[in-house]
């Protein structure tokens, strides 16, 4: 085929009809407070590891809500479990506990 020097980039649009919420629902069943997040970003702003690893509890939760489980798992690796995010969360979400629960789910799935 003739190469005209053009290419087609894949669409960045998220199709919310096709989002798989299995992981989010599993997380909510053991950590109901996950639903409470209002994406204020306090957790990410205070995160000790965030600036170097890209870790952000807000983004982890958002990714799971959008079905991006792999991205969330990759981010979680940056967490040092210091618990500062739990201290600052205005909605009182035990984010440290939530992270551990998420790791447990990922661990079970890896078996």
């Amino acid at each position, binding site marked *: 085929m003739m190469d005209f020097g053009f290419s087609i980039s894949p669409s960045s*649009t*998220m*199709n*919310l009809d096709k989002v798989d919420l299995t992981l989010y629902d599993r997380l909510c069943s053991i950590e*109901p407070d996950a*639903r409470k997040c*209002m994406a204020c970003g306090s957790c990410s702003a205070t995160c000790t590891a965030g600036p170097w690893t890209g870790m952000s509890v807000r983004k982890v939760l*958002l990714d799971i*809500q959008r079905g991006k489980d792999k991205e969330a798992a990759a981010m979680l690796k940056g967490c040092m479990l210091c618990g500062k995010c739990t201290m600052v969360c205005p909605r009182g979400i035990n984010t440290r506990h939530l992270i551990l629960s998420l790791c447990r789910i990922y661990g079970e799935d890896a078996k």
Partner: protein
Amino acid sequence: MKDNIVIVGGGIAGMEAARQLLLLGYKPILVEKSDHLGGHVADWHCLFPDMTPAQDVVKGLVEQIKDANIFLETEVSFINRMKMGYNVMFSNGVNVICKAILLATGFDLFEASRKEEYGYGIYDQVMTNRDLERWFNTGDDKRITGKDIKKIGFVHCVGSRDVKAGNQQCSKVCCITAIKQAMEMKERFPDAEVYCFYMDLRLFGKKYEDFYIKAQMESGVHFIRGRVSEVSENMQGQVIIKTEDTLSGKPAKITLDLLVLMAGIVCNKQAVQTASMVQVQTDSDGFLKSKDNILNIIETGSKGVFLAGTATGAKTIPETAAEARAAALAIHNYLVAQS
């Protein structure tokens, strides 16, 4: 009989002011253009934050103002200024000489069809907040009745915070109304997924934030931050909406069985006309202009003309009622000073 007072508008503000004036010993004349009292609230089903039936609120007020002179299906034809007050001519032919006029003329709900990109009146499965309340009341709406509703979306800020639509202001009550209606729909359709598309959530009032947390925790409503940009229809008659998921920083699309537009509060055009008869101007936001926007919302630049409720801007029912009480007292003080 004490001095005549004319109240224009039989919504919450007009009725509450009439109630207070009756308690103060006056016999106000209340004119309402429609065939019933209660204004927009009469069209509603339940009210936040305690899910009080709207009918109870309206009926409670109507009961208590029986002794007032009430003219339904009546409008103000013209008002002439006189030495000591005003000569008001109503559309029913009645002519009244009064010392004080209260403009409790309320608001108009934004005409959702003006935002053509949202498809109200174009696509079958698009409705407004008012249409949904009507369905709650009547159970009859071809967009919902007998339909398999699996996914519902609520669009915040329709015709509010929208310079191009001519309404820069926030309508205040739509955020909490959307959340209330989202939860009510989830109750009626437990298997449905419910989405709210918002720019900010402005939950300023008593117990509003509790409502938000409840919607997240108990109803599982999905909140997506981003203004819906366009709506289209597919062959199955569902609507496809496009928005930017601003928290992810990516465009998103979703197919819905029902889309509810949260039409905002805009100034009542007819009220502006009535107000101009007594030289009451409009403020820069298009609503009626108070003497002062901090400590004197009730009085106007015209002697003996007072304002209450959403005539001066978007308000909740408790705010409107509080203003109506303040207006009744201001009128009383004015009349005492006159005599």
